[in-house]
């Protein structure tokens, strides 16, 4: 098995899965990604176009992994458009991982959009360890609901459960995943809350977890160039998201003044979250 994660691998796209009109999963063979820890990310190279960080998506085939892309700017759109047989490159997986306490019995997973990618790897692992997982996923509207079938497969035959929310109520529970979470934690105790998604959503999740005295772990995103702790572009307060994170616990998050407040753009200027 290869061990140097910094080594760029060029892989052929083995399969593409259209998740929604704007989200696609690309499946490829790569041992290092197959063995990625939940929460780790790849630096994905789209030759002569871009290199962008992408969480490692699970795939059912042994030795295979995937990335799930939301079409956005140049890089993600170009990746989105890659076809079966196309070559892309990658290095990593980088970053730390979601941690499952040894004695955990029940966890709560709250995610939205492609933020679900690392959470599904976590859920798979938790369920393998017989930890009961309550998964709350949010989307703006019915057509944007991601990974519902896959998640049902993961939890089927276990005590775990899935709640799908849409902001506009076109599917599942009407409301945000955050409002659903508020209800759930009122009635049930959890050993830990895990979250990934838009930062303001995560900020809300972290606040609710704190108010309910539940440990929490969130996977943060910042603009990344190197992905390995050299360039500094991903800094958030004194942390480097790529090297110290991407996952931080409630205690670390509580000291981060910029979390949910400001981020830095490509030239390093601080911008306020809208």
């Amino acid at each position, binding site marked *: 098995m290869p061990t140097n994660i910094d080594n760029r691998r060029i892989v052929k796209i083995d399969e593409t899965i259209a998740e929604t009109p704007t989200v696609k999963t690309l499946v490829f063979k790569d041992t290092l990604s197959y063995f990625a820890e939940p929460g780790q990310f790849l630096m994905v190279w789209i*030759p002569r176009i871009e290199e962008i960080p992408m969480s490692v998506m699970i795939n059912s085939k042994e030795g295979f992994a995937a990335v799930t892309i939301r079409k956005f700017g140049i890089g993600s759109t170009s990746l989105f458009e890659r076809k079966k047989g196309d070559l892309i490159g990658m290095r990593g997986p980088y970053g730390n991982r979601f941690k499952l306490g040894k004695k955990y019995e029940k966890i709560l997973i709250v995610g939205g959009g492609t933020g679900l990618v690392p959470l599904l790897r976590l859920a798979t692992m938790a369920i393998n360890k017989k930890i009961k997982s309550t998964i709350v996923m949010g989307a703006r509207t019915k057509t944007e609901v991601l990974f519902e079938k896959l998640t049902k497969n993961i939890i089927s035959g276990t005590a775990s459960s899935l709640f799908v929310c849409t902001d506009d109520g076109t599917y599942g529970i009407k409301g945000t995943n955050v409002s659903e979470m508020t209800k759930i934690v009122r009635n049930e105790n959890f050993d830990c809350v895990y979250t990934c998604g838009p930062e303001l959503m995560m900020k809300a999740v972290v606040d609710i977890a704190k108010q309910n005295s539940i440990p929490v772990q969130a996977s943060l995103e910042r603009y990344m160039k190197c992905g390995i702790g050299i360039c500094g572009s991903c800094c958030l307060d004194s942390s480097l998201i790529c090297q110290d994170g991407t996952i931080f616990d409630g205690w670390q998050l509580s000291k981060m003044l910029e979390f949910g407040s400001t981020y*830095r753009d490509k030239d390093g*200027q601080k911008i306020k979250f809208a």
Partner: protein
Amino acid sequence: MSVDDKNFKLSVDIDEITLRNPTMLASGILGISQSIFERLYDENIGGIVTKSISVEPMKGYPNPTLIPLSGGSYLNAVGLSNPGVNAFSEELSQNKNIPIFISLVGSSEKDFAKMIKVFDSLNIIGYEINLSCPHVSKMGMEVGDDPEAVSKIVSTVRKNTKKPISVKVGVGSVDVIELARTAIDAGANIITAINTLRAMSIDVETMMPILSNRIGGLSGTAIKPIGIRCVYEISKNLKVPVIGCGGISTWQDVVEYMLAGASAVQIGSVLGSAGPRIFNSITKDLKKYIERKGIMKISEIVGIAHKY
């Protein structure tokens, strides 16, 4: 052992500046955030050089901008992305006691004069002029390869500030000693050597250059023997304070640069594998080294290799 004694052993003088130890952050590495500078200072770093700042904010090149090569070497072409003089002076405005050099990059004398006007009232210890970025047109190396431009820019900076000026040189197409001499003659106090070397990497499967800018700068372990040579030659020939940089990843590398003639050193790429705590571990090991060797003060070893 008192804190003073500890500081005394590792403290170094570079021109009129005293640092508590010879380790500094190299420009462009984690270099845009005051919070990060404070974290590094807590990790016992001696001094900081910021990312090279230009008058206007620069987005830099699209990714890939950095490629890890094998064995601790890296190739980068970030394109001098930086927040620009205004945002950055805001960033540093709360700095109190951290010894910070601001690295400056520009294409005309006016650029430099403008930036100094904004920065000079900040709590900083000096400037480093980047004349050696090997992969951005009209900035860095293209200026550094033109002795007349170097002379003009350095004199302009000299006229506009009383703070120490270091000029950062690289291995380009002008002799490194001549470049350093030109800079010193124009009023620089210190030479920083070296910047990255112009280099490239092509992927054999796609047959394409990997960096978006195609050509970038080589840093990390690969360039250490070249950096050592430049520091040795500059300090031997010009007798000016030199800050060594390039491929440092262990305390032995720091000692090697100091033996070659460096008064202090800058550390960059290794942060990718070792993280900010490397400053703490290197300074501890440096102290052990001088104690084992029966040396009173680490500055005593500067340039010893010239004797042999």
